[in-house]
């Protein structure tokens, strides 16, 4: 019952590479209409966590439930309710925008696919690029295509790994608006990673900081810095990165 109230429930998740503990028994949830920020310095375990939630990396232990479905027991069903966009996985540049959306729509078995494709093209202002090869688009346009792909199946859980990295502030703002709209008007939730603390504070309802594979602090991004004696989220981030022990002791 507990799992059904969340779009994502992670319990005691652990991933070890040889002697390195990448993710060390973390537990967290993402609720419906909620945007949760997964923060931390490079190598903290953010991408490893996202990879496990996406079902492309097998955890050593722990459980992941997406919309109440156990990922380990029913990967196809669980993953069918997710989608993702990440700065390090561009869509194939040698296909046009519409071709990419059609292929991923088929992979997610989207009903009325043509209708959905048109809706995504309109929502992300991509109509004029519909027959353009994705690889020749600008960074901002490619990010919009990635987000259109990420929302083609109206996922319950949207995973975004630094979706606005390399975008100019104006385009990044539009993208943030699109993602907020997705979270607030549907019944899905978003797990978001970013190194832009201004953005995180603006967009996320809740954040947690990872350091060395463990969740160090968690809370509302607007009040969290004050709770730990910091003025801004960025200051808190720097403390997590440089002096994590001071926060653990606190």
């Amino acid at each position, binding site marked *: 019952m507990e799992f059904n109230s969340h779009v994502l429930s992670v319990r005691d998740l652990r991933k070890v*590479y040889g002697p390195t503990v990448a993710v060390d028994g973390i537990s967290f949830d993402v609720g419906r209409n909620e945007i949760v920020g997964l923060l931390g310095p490079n190598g903290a375990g953010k*991408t490893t966590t996202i*990879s496990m939630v996406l079902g492309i990396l097998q955890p050593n232990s722990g459980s992941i439930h997406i919309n109440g479905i156990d990922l380990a027991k029913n990967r196809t069903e669980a993953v069918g309710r997710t989608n*993702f966009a990440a700065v390090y996985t561009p869509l194939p540049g040698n296909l046009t925008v519409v071709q990419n959306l059609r*292929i*991923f729509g088929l992979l997610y078995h989207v009903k009325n696919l043509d209708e959905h494709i048109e809706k995504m093209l309109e929502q992300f202002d991509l109509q004029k690029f519909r027959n353009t090869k994705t690889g020749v688009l600008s960074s901002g346009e490619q990010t919009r295509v990635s987000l259109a792909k990420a929302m083609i199946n109206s996922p319950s859980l949207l995973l975004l790994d630094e979706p606005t990295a390399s975008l100019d502030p104006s385009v990044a703002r539009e993208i943030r608006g699109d993602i907020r709209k997705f979270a607030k008007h549907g019944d899905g939730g978003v797990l978001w990673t970013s190194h832009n603390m201004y953005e995180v504070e603006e967009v996320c309802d809740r954040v947690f900081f990872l350091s060395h594979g463990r969740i160090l602090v968690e809370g509302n991004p607007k009040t969290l810095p004050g709770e730990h004696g910091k003025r801004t989220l960025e200051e808190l981030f720097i403390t997590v990165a440089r002096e994590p022990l001071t926060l653990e002791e606190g």
Partner: protein
Amino acid sequence: MNTSRMLAVTLRQVYLIRGSFPRVLPLFIWVAVDMVLWGFLTRFLNSIANAGVNFIYMFLGAVLMWDFFIRVMQGVTMAFLEDVWSRNFLNFFATPITTMEYVGGLVLTSIGTSAIGLAVMLVLATAIFGLTVFAYGAAIVPFLIELFLFGIALGVMSIALVLRLGPAAEWFIWPIPGLLSPFAGVFYPISILPHWMQCVSYVLPPSYIFESMRTIIQGGQASPVHLALGGALAVAYVMIAFWLFHNTYRHAMRTGLLARYSAESSSY
């Protein structure tokens, strides 16, 4: 098995091939060159030799069948490598697709691309050199099926190798048909090989096919035992190949190789 997901894998290849002349040309150009080269060579051999056999059926027919096998294998590997080159693994395997559906999509692609190659070879061999596959009788059907299955098996084994060792391992897969051809007896009977090479030949399905082809050309009948052995071996190789790919994928999921798949991600 979800056909929509399998078709998505195939459709991606259709889009790629349809819009790209450099991808369309290799579907038939090399097999066409082989047909012309071997066609004139066999015509020349027929004109100077009095061996009592038609070299067109002995050699050109064999080249046609061997090239078909290579096209089938490369149909699978090329489709897979398109995903390697465009770093598309994460995008694909983060969807609900299963390994069987993914490989199924590659096999569908291979059916299409190898059929184009086969059609071009048949047209050239028949129209220019007078080769007719009906000369091999009804046995041509099991010949093609067994070569197709073995091509699929080797293709899937090859992509498992690239998945396991990293993109740089693609160079291992191109010479595989060339390495197998001396053992498969494409142009000569297995009996002339040294014993240790014959031992290898006995476990390769094409050996039985090419032996049977030569028997038919010399006026005999294809041995049902040979056809059955070749078929059983081909099916066994297909099963081993799918098992190998699935396990390689599981290994890549456990070790993080899949999540970090790129030119630098392999441990080798």
